């Protein structure tokens, strides 16, 4: 991990042009500043890469497969969210969605770096040089952005799911999975808040916004069940204490999302009809994806694949 240090304001490489803020324009009290910036102190993907190189972090085959799932979920979502930057409903929201995308991308990089250690592959090898059937993300993450309501509905489901997941993974017997989850948990907690605030506003705003958020939930609900499906891998990992059975997250997910939906005046049965929405067969964890992922990967991978082996 990095030690915290303050970045002083200095524009190097600009010769004799100094900022030299003086007189009345200066902020006055030197200690009280609204612009003191620091890089902070938290687990970064680079730290994991370093541990991998040193050989101090090496996942088992099962844990690597598991990290691949978590990493792919976050990567595909980050790729989707990144598209919003410069297109959001208001400039402030460009920044908010950008922050969430950056958080998810950070989680993806950490998980993929760790997973890659098992096969001697880098995060970029995994992101850019796997084929579609090799991706392990669930279908929800690859669903198109749609309008802002669809994106918020997707964020709402994802962040409440990820929160429950990372919360339990704090206790993972795999130290790296636990550490990445600890960093991710705090960020995803904020994502929950962001999406919940918007669910309240869209549901309780205008007739149009209510209609749109209801449509958003109906559009995405078929992909909820897949998030909570157990399989042999999760069973083995849960048994070993390194992972969790997704089905064990469902109860808390239902309760907490239900509370927000109730506050938003959205009745799961009467307004959203969630109980009658057929659940998609899924298959993302086995590499079976919807029609959307191919386009997403084509765009994401095009440049890297044009220059195999190149460094950027």
């Amino acid at each position, binding site marked *: 991990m990095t030690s915290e240090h303050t970045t002083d304001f200095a524009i190097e490489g600009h010769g004799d042009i100094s900022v030299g803020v003086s007189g009345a324009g200066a902020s006055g009290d030197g200690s009280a500043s609204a*612009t003191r910036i620091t890089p902070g102190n938290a687990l970064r993907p680079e730290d994991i890469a370093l541990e991998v190189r040193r050989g101090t972090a090496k996942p088992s085959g099962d844990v690597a497969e598991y990290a691949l799932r978590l990493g792919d979920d976050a990567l595909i979502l980050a790729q989707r969210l990144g598209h919003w930057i410069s297109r959001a409903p208001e400039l402030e929201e460009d920044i908010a969605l950008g922050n969430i995308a950056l958080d998810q991308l950070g989680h993806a990089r950490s998980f993929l770096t760790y997973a890659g250690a098992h096969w001697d592959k880098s995060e970029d090898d995994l992101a850019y040089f796997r084929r579609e059937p090799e991706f392990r993300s669930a279908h929800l993450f690859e669903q198109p952005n749609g309008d802002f309501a669809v994106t918020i509905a997707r964020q709402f489901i994802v962040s409440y799911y990820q929160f429950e997941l990372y919360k339990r993974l704090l206790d993972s017997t795999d130290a790296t999975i636990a550490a990445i989850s600890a960093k991710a948990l705090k960020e995803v907690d904020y994502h929950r808040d962001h999406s919940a605030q918007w669910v309240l506003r869209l549901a309780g705003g205008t007739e149009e916004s209510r209609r749109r958020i209801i449509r958003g939930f109906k559009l995405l609900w078929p992909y909820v069940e897949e998030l909570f499906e157990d399989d042999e891998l999760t069973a083995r990992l849960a048994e070993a204490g390194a992972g969790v059975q997704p089905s064990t997250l469902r109860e808390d997910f239902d309760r907490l999302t239900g509370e927000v939906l109730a506050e938003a005046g959205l009745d799961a049965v009467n307004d959203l009809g969630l109980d009658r929405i057929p659940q998609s067969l899924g298959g993302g964890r086995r590499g079976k994806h919807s029609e959307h992922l191919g386009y997403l990967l084509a765009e994401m991978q095009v440049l890297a694949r044009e220059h195999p082996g190149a460094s950027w």
Partner: protein
Amino acid sequence: MASQKLQSVPGSPSGETALSPEEQERERAGQAYFDRIIAEDSRIEPRDWMPEAYRRTLLRQVSQHAHSEIIGMQPEANWITRAPSLKRKAILMAKVQDEAGHGLYLYSAAETLGQSRDKMMQDLIDGKARYSSIFNYPAVSWADMGAIGWLVDGAAICNQVPLCRASYGPYGRAMVRICKEESFHQRQGFEILLELSNGTPAQKQMAQDAVNRWYAPALMMFGPPDDDSPNSKQSMAWNIKRFSNDELRSRFVGMMVEQVKVLGLTLPDPDIRFNEETKKWEHGPLDWNEFKDVLAGKGPCNAQRMERRRQAHEDGAWVREAAAAYAAKQAQKEHAA
């Protein structure tokens, strides 16, 4: 004396004939106070008296600056989804996001001059406002992310660092924050080019090609030559501008000449030389007709950039309305409770 609500700057109205004696006196006192502040190189703050022309000049400059940040997001945002490594993707996302932030800081500053952000935004999408014409050029390769960071942001920083001392307080403060944050923008661009230059022949070619395309437009970002820049003199007298267009351009060329060597690339300008007499860097001729054409809307991407902004604004209308309606309902509920 009663405390005041924050309110519009009482500049001189357009028809000055109708001023009462007291108003004339206040104008005189205001002008004297303003002149003293400028002479002392101190700062004008929002509700100070200021000459109408000063306010108008600033409003135009700050809002154009803000629009440039917002439109300037687009050429780079186009590459977020295609960034060739995850690290570069994160950096680019953070950078484009910063640009939205910088636009907001600047709109904030402009609002203190008496115009709402909604009006400024409307002027932008109605085509009534201008933004830096460089963003009307296309970003066609990944190397453009490097060239934009190194040359375009480099030129912008050169321009902006002296603006931290602009006489209008809110503008200077916004620029301080922006310059702090932008210090990473140019470096990441430089790094992209350096990686490409040290990479495969195809990568190096990509980098050189991008530098070739962005060099001249970047030099033109400093504005027309001094003898063709009628407003510069007044802006300098008001301590808004600290250095002339040509002065800044020359400094910039001097820095790039050295930096391009580290990159192992060349600048597409055989006429660059250091003038021993003037002690200034000189560059080859720039096509100012093209500059004017692009400014006039004839650039390759003018229509596309405007349409994208308009689309985002219009697509977002229902969201903004929903949030406003929700806030109104909540306020009503609280009021009733």
